[in-house]
């Protein structure tokens, strides 16, 4: 007994960051992944396994990427020629990033916006993924203890990415189904007042456009209102536009860059855009993210801080090649949008046939599904019960709205782009059968 106590006393201590649970990996959002990992669906080997619909990954256009990479090995591999530039590339650790890569990223971002906004390669800061970009911006724009306003429902990862090491708070800006979860100035003001009452200083608003988990783009007038709000309060506006290339139609996505362009870049020094190739190009493994800031000081600072999260020079070179191939990118962007639209229509259709409604969406790799009619009581507990039921009985991993901080229980995010069409059909059939069973039970109970 005495020995045990001694050992405990002598255990060497760790920091608060290390022992905190702000990483959030104990939430249902991540627990569902565990269930999937233990019993993953496979068409041939495990047809009754859990289908992963909680991961926003884009696999619908892999064939286009594969084709490009197969046919352009000289651009993507060092091995083919002696004077391949391997040496210079392997030594290149400049945090400015390869100029060719920054140019290619800037031009790709322009293409996605149909040329309606211009991007200067010198304002592009590279990071190893959007996760790192969001954290970096938070370190730069917000002091520990201060807050960011984030419209809810929002991506569950933000709780970790924006708060864990930075010591910053998130104040959710509540959006309601009654107006399609659109962000209103009233809601922004309410959140700001909430912060004030808690004596917390608000330093910025962080929006995701197109929205995760809603799967919808933000209207022009609302973007203008948000910018106006940020200007009035003299705070920053971070626009995470990671799904910009996944809007089903190019005209429906309006970037904050376009809003700025239209007003002559007035007040632009408070605006920063986050982008990544993890969703639009389906390359999350490459770890490619960028911060685009209109504020010189932020650009300089972010660039220096990016030393902690640089992109492999090999990957930069590969992508510089691929993204400056305008024919490839135009074709890819167009076909990717079409396929995502088709998938979206397929899932909406299937869910409707099962008697389930979704929010009208026009972008992203997921839809925002309304199962609130299925809840006996409109509570978070009921929502989590339903989520567990769907996970263990229907064997689908979907994301409950509560993990996205949605104020109304019963909404779920369902991803549709990380699987084949066949698998999606299987998932839809399971949902259909589940709803049938429920209706049968209801009828039998005379309800």
């Amino acid at each position, binding site marked *: 007994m005495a020995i045990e106590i001694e050992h405990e006393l002598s255990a060497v201590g760790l920091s608060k960051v290390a022992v905190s649970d702000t990483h959030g990996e104990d939430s249902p959002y991540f627990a569902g992944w565990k269930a999937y990992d233990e019993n993953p669906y496979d068409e041939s080997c495990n047809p009754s396994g859990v289908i992963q619909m909680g991961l926003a990954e884009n696999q619908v256009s892999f064939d286009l990427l594969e084709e490009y990479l197969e046919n352009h090995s000289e651009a993507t591999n060092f091995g083919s020629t002696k004077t391949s530039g391997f040496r210079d590339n392997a030594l290149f650790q400049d945090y400015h990033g390869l100029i060719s890569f920054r140019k290619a990223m800037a031009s790709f971002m322009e293409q996605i916006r149909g040329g309606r906004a211009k991007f200067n390669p010198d304002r592009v800061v590279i990071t190893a993924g959007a996760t790192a970009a969001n954290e970096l911006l938070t370190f730069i724009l917000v002091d520990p203890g201060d807050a960011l306003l984030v419209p809810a429902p929002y991506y569950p990862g933000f709780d970790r990415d924006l708060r864990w090491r930075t010591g910053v708070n998130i104040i959710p800006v509540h959006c309601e189904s009654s107006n399609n979860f659109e962000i209103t100035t009233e809601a922004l003001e309410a959140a700001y007042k909430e912060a004030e009452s808690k004596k917390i200083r608000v330093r910025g608003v962080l929006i995701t456009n197109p929205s995760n988990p809603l799967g919808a783009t933000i209207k022009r007038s609302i973007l203008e209102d948000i910018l106006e709000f940020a200007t009035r309060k003299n705070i920053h506006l971070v626009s995470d536009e990671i799904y910009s290339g996944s809007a089903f139609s190019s005209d429906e996505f309006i970037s904050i860059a376009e809003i700025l362009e239209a007003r002559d*870049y007035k007040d632009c020094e408070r605006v920063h855009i986050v982008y990544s190739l993890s969703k639009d190009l389906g390359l999350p493994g490459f770890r490619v993210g960028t911060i685009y800031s209109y504020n010189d000081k932020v650009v300089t600072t972010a660039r220096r801080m990016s030393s902690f999260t640089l992109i492999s020079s090999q990957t930069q070179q590969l992508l510089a090649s691929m993204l400056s191939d305008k024919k490839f990118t135009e074709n890819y962007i167009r076909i990717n949008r079409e396929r995502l639209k088709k998938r979206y229509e397929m899932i909406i259709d299937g869910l409707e046939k099962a008697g389930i409604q979704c929010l009208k969406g026009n972008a992203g790799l997921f839809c925002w599904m309304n199962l609130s009619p299925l809840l006996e009581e409109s509570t978070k507990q009921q929502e989590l019960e339903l989520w567990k039921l769907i996970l263990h009985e229907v064997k689908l991993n979907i994301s409950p709205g509560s993990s996205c901080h949605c104020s109304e229980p019963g909404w779920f995010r369902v991803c549709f782009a990380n699987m084949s069409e066949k698998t999606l059909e299987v998932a839809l059939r399971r949902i259909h059968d589940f709803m049938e069973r429920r209706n049968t039970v209801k009828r039998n109970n005379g309800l």
Partner: protein
Amino acid sequence: MRLIVPLQGVVQGRGGLILGSLIPCALFYFLQFYLKRHRSPPRNPPSPSSSAANLSELPRSSSRANLTTRGSIGLVHVSARAKAVAAPNDSPYYIGLDRVREDPYDEMSNPDGVIQLGLAENRLSLDLIEDWLSKNLTGSILGVGGNGLGLSGIATYQPMDGLMEFKVAMADFMTEVMGRTVSFDPSRVVLTSGATPALEILSFCLADQGNAFLVPAPYYPGFDRDMRWRTGVDLIPVHCRSCDNFTLSITALEQSFNQARKRGQKVRGILISNPSNPVGNLLNRDMLYDLLDFARERNIHIISDEIFAGSKYGNEEFVSMAEIVDSEEADKDRVHIIYGMSKDFSVPGFRVGVIYSFNENVLAASRKLTRFSSVSTPTQQLLVSVLSDKRFTQEYIKMNKQRMRSTYDLFVAGLKELGIECTKSSAGLYCWVDMSRLISPYNEKGELDLWDKLLNIAKINVTPGSACHCIEPGWFRFCFTTLNEKEIPIVMERIRKVVESCKPPM
């Protein structure tokens, strides 16, 4: 803020009030003067500064995006952390690197440019890797790597702390490069985008804001950034002296620890680099055991940065902290090792670093934190391919050591001819050069004067000891692995010019 903290440190502990105020002030004024003389126009982003009246006449085009916001920069608040980071680089280490970036030496196109001897980069053996790649990787990147999974293998979400195959490959490589005296376990390998974030992650995990690490000085200037910038953690230098050949003394360590305690500052660990940077010493077995004892008695951590383990050109043996812990069952929990592919394997651009820890809780926290600093999957697959060829890696390690040895010998001989001595070092990509007789006055100002002459007259970028927190003035770090044989005489000639002008009159 950044300037105040080091000033506080000097005033409170070492050097007394007078020295503590005078030297930093002198340094501060000198650097301001230096910066005024040498400030180059800000390069990023390019922007014409037009008056408000003209702007309305400019056509709407991309130039709009280039314009600096007229006078409204900084009206919106940025964090205190950002302000500190955005401050102009005041360390000669970074100023020198910037100068080379602006005016790099090139044999053909810029023979009068600045020669880089301030970045510990190994250019001696890249041809070996290039050769291997040209023979073995001729297809597309889809075919690279262990599993032949095609695009899914490299494109989709993978574990943030690295592919299992890559962990295995790195563990094997570490075992090989450190002399096969200890076997590294892949399940203790956490991969990060370079050693820089590896250090920062450990700093976040082992210490709270305001806590400190003891660091033998002189030390790598980058530690100040990696360990402190965003973590709020402090570094306390433990000074080593030339009379001891700059080896660490446990007594000095003890003194620093006690002084910190008196100040009310909690020391959470010791950060050692072995082989050491900038001196190039190897810590011997006895010292490592003493360090472990010291850490145990005070219940603190040890971070052993072993990133130069394979860059050994002398005959002394390299002993990893892993080997020490191997024979001691208890105490593993406090030992953490840093490694990476930027030095021994010459691929700093690929961003590959390793945290190797014996503490399960640290591993768990580090793994989660790698999401902010993960290694690109195609690069992991490429390296898995190369590192799986054990014959090649063994050959590479051997040849690299030979080339380092011959370059080191040539370089040191060249300096000797100029009457300049170095410490006897056995590893690292640099040598620690004694130019104390050439500086005047014999203090930091004299040292920075010489550094300035070397940078702007001789046009070679070297790192002055003060940037490494060396307590004795006049020492400089010269990296020699960025040079080929032809360039050594050129460097020596340039140094000669400056040295001649510095020699005290007869």
